[in-house]
């Protein structure tokens, strides 16, 4: 994270940060505007073309196809809003929406709390810091296919290690993946396990940008550890925290493998999220229209939310 703190200070220096807070960013010099502008356009073109092909086209196609009764090989005929009314009146859609919300809330705040806690413990000074950091990042680095296989081995049947342990401790038969309510808890726990390292990295880099003399100052003023954390540290990392919540919300809502590989959406659809529902509707039930309509509804909501949030981040910067 050294590059980060360096970057932060360079950025601050460039802004000329004073007592009154950061000033406006310096304007780039307008030297040779035409050739420079042309080069910039050329620089951006490959990525823009790729993103248009891979995002705009599918979006338009999905929007149009959600109004038809086609399949993966056939465009089908126009059916109006039938797919949407079908979805919006189906119980499985609302159930999946509900679980997506729960899964996202637990995923975001659970992994944030764990990640921030670990980032605080990992502040410079702790012995073997680098090794501990790499070890704690592993759940995020290892493929979900691998970790879900392992969690399955640990939890899936009554003969698995963790249920056996629970039985020995007197909890009786704990069916982590077979009981609908418990499976929801397990999936959320798995998501936190997978995601906390990302939050740990985000928070660690936010903490390094906090000037360490401010901690000394608050200690001199007689603040306790908790007071320092709540009144000094938290407000100072509020912005990176907010951004990390937004990113993690997006990751959680769009997450497919974490749920699908652990439970496949079961038992009795209790852990079905909207993405899993869209996937199974299209690729297992072969109902392309309704499946695309689910995905498209999600997309519209996400785009609206993300544009709003983006505006807010930008506005907060100027204030």
């Amino acid at each position, binding site marked *: *994270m050294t*590059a980060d703190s360096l*970057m932060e200070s*360079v*950025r601050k220096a*460039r802004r000329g940060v004073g007592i009154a807070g950061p000033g406006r960013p310096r*304007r*780039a010099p307008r*030297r040779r505007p035409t050739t420079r502008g042309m*080069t910039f356009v050329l*620089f951006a073109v490959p*990525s*823009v073309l*790729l993103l248009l092909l*891979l995002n705009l086209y*599918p*979006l338009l196609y*999905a929007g149009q*196809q959600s109004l038809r009764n086609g399949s*993966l*090989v056939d465009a089908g005929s126009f059916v109006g809003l039938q797919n949407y009314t079908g979805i919006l009146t189906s119980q499985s859609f609302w159930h999946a929406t509900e679980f997506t919300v729960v899964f996202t809330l637990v995923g975001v705040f659970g992994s944030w709390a764990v990640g921030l806690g670990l980032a605080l*413990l*990992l502040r410079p000074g*702790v012995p073997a810091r*680098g090794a501990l950091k*790499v*070890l704690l*990042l*592993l*759940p995020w*680095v*290892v*493929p*979900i*296919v*691998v970790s879900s296989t*392992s969690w399955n*081995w640990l939890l899936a049947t009554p003969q698995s*290690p963790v249920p056996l342990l629970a039985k020995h401790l007197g909890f009786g038969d704990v069916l982590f993946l077979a009981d609908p309510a418990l499976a929801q808890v397990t999936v959320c726990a798995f998501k936190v396990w997978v995601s906390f390292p990302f939050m740990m*990295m*985000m928070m*660690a*880099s936010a903490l390094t940008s906090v000037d360490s003399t401010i901690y000394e100052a608050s200690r001199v003023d007689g603040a306790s550890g908790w007071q320092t954390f709540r009144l000094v540290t938290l407000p100072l990392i509020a912005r990176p925290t907010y*951004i990390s919540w937004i990113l993690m919300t*997006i990751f959680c*809502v*769009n997450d*497919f*493998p974490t749920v*699908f590989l652990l439970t496949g959406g079961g038992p009795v659809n209790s852990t079905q999220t909207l993405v899993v529902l*869209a*996937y199974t509707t299209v690729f297992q039930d072969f109902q392309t229209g309704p499946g*695309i309509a689910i995905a*498209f509804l999600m997309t519209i909501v*996400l*785009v609206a939310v*993300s*544009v709003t949030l983006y505006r807010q981040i*930008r506005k907060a*910067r100027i204030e």
Partner: protein
Amino acid sequence: MSARWWRFIALTLIAVVVLVPLVAVVALSVQPSLGSAATGPTWENYVKVFTQTNISSWIGNSLLVTLATVVVAVVIAAPAGYVLSRGRGRLVVGFSLALFVIQSLPVITAVIPLFILFAQFGLVDTLGGLVVIYVGATMSVAIWMMAAYFDSIPITLEEAAWVEGCSVFGSFTRIVLRNSLPGILSTAIFSFLLAWNDYLVAVVFLRSAQNYTLPIGLETFFQQDQTNWGPVMAVAVVMMVPPIIVFAVLNRFFSVGGIGGSLAGR
């Protein structure tokens, strides 16, 4: 005992608990199967996997797809990141907003129409088709990461070069890129992880067994024989070793912290 040792002990305990699932994978992969002559740790599961499955072709496919994704992603994201870092004005702000919106789109929405589109061009069930989608999927974060790193390079160097008559392109390749190895590595690591670990795109697009990448290979193998954990875990170990090595060696270059900065603007 001082506070830093308490922190060390707490972190070690947490790490031990957190890593149980990964240690279990390794332990099971070297455990002799039922009816085997071996008593201690053994390589037999690995021997079995390499002789009886297509794992070498899965590894080859995964490596090919991942390396192609990394190279193409860096080549496309670096200049775009430069625009985001140095550019000002409405177009750049629009570009930045577009990247954020695109990052928030569910992959599933893109996958279904792309499956239909790619089918028309014969790109379904090809590794090339996979690379195109992976590069697209890395783009937003890759561009933010490159931009975040470019921000740390003072623009004065480029200004001096321009005064000397160097073009923007020349100053980008000769000054900026040359000093951006950590930023490039960070982007490369991110795209490596995305491509190597992906399950959703591969499971939709890959149909024939000879094109399987490791995640799909492991998953089909797991579905075939759910009770025989040893060989399954041997495949899992093969699959998790490359990202772990990459991360252990290069982790000091990897930083997601910059994402926030470039996302929110400077």
